[in-house]
């Protein structure tokens, strides 16, 4: 379970933890939007400082964020590689066949790398400091206007919160099944691609079966406790928009203005 950092929550009581999940969700998406405004050293430096201040405010060990990078490192390296060797312009440092190392290529590569790292840091910050349930509450609240278009917002958010609630449970289960199958001689890492895919079957089938059993049990438990859908339901969790959240949004507006100023 420790391998997957995405979607995990680390309890704490920092400023970031105390923020309204709606503000955090909006801010994270907004951040991904404005990161594309950055196009020179100054603007990236500005965004990086902003991100690290946010990470610092969360009081969560930086190691967690770096571990969050690990899952996407392949994609990052691939993109950076393409940028570095296939961008033309500026001084040519080195050339071999179609590969060409140029001044623009290097800067572009670094920019892309920064962009990835900042986006991943920000979204990891969101999931590390927000309870899955808060997140789905926020999504429900933000999607509420879509009810006018007959979108089943309550069902969607319940689905999401149950899915999030069962992520750790299913991860534990997967590991248990894997170990049980290993004990019976299944090898999950050896062999060629087809053999590896075959080895997944004794893992996947029991996992599917147990997920369905869980779903039936959970449905019974929910019904037995009087669940009849979204109508007439009250909410235990209250989303409170506080001064802190307004300040955050204002900070983002300020950041956008600064970005527009320093970009060329």
């Amino acid at each position: 379970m420790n391998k997957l950092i995405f979607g995990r929550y680390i309890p704490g009581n920092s400023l970031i933890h105390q923020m309204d999940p709606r503000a955090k969700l909006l801010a994270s998406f907004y951040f991904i939007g404005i990161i594309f405004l950055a196009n020179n050293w100054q603007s990236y430096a500005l965004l990086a400082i902003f991100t690290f201040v946010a990470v610092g405010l969360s009081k969560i060990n930086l190691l967690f964020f770096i571990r969050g990078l690990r899952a996407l490192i392949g994609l990052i390296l691939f993109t950076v590689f393409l940028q570095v060797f296939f961008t033309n312009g500026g001084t040519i440092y080195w050339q071999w066949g179609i590969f060409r190392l140029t001044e623009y290529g290097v800067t572009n590569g670094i920019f892309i790398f920064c962009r990835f790292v900042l986006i991943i840091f920000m979204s990891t910050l969101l999931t590390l400091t927000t309870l899955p349930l808060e997140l789905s509450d926020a999504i429900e609240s933000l999607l509420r206007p879509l009810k006018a278009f007959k979108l089943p917002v309550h069902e969607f958010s319940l689905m999401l919160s149950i899915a999030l609630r069962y992520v750790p449970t299913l991860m534990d289960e997967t590991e248990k099944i894997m170990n049980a199958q290993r004990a019976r001689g299944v090898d999950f890492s050896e062999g060629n691609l087809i053999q590896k895919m075959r080895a997944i079957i004794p893992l996947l089938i029991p996992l599917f079966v147990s997920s369905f059993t869980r779903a039936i049990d959970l449905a019974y438990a929910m019904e037995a406790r009087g669940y009849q859908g979204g109508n007439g339901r009250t909410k235990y969790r209250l989303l409170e928009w506080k001064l802190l959240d307004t300040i955050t949004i204002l900070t983002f507006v300020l950041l956008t203005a600064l970005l527009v100023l320093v970009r060329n």
Partner: protein
Amino acid sequence: MKPIIEMNNITFRYQVEDTIPALNDVSLSIHQGEWIAIIGHNGSGKSTLAKTINGLLLPEAGTIKINGQEVNEKNIWDIRRNVGMVFQNPDNQFVGSTVEDDVAFGLENQGIPREEMLIRVKESLEQVRMAEFMKKEPSRLSGGQKQRVAIAGIVALRPNVIILDEATSMLDPEGRLEVIATVKKIKEENNLTVLSITHDIDEAANANRIFVMKKGQLIQEGTPEEIFSAGEKLIELGLDLPFPERLKAALKQAGLNVPTDYMTEERMVDWLWTSVLKK
């Protein structure tokens, strides 16, 4: 006194083509404040019986009355306010992402205002001694703790009847004792009716009456003393032997003359020391 649960000639089949119904002509009545244990072999219809009581399954024949109100498709939601159920697998019935959310889930469903919920959640978690775990996630709790949270979720709804559907069967001995003690305490405090479906001897020994199921039928009904005096036949009924019974069997094998009627642990101790003195 009017019975709180009354079942008349209940028959239930999971599939129409099943030749042996899961429940076959079951009739019983239970009074407010009783603790009832339902025992029987795997597949004897205990769990099905429990599910018919709060309308999760509707019988094909017969009537069920809860507090004088007949269970049918129209009023199952009212019935479920009266009947809370704790299921077997602690993991699969945990709806909320944290303890407090899970306890609040049932209250939310009933549209109870938030101020009231805050009080009830806290109160019921204190009753099961889980208040300090309020903000914890389910993956950080033990099985026994999860079941206690499930009980708190029911207690918060203030039902008259609590059904334990093999609620302790997946727990270790310690968790089992913990859960039984919790239910016992809550039952005394609120004069609840408890219906526990079980293989566990300690749970059955706590009951006022025991119902024995076999192949979908209710074959026997009596106090724990009456049922436990069946001795080794208990194993056939789907129950372990109580410890005094096992001791009695061992003493008998060693050639001692033991009384045949059922004895609680205390009576066994009394009998042992008096018979040693007599020698």
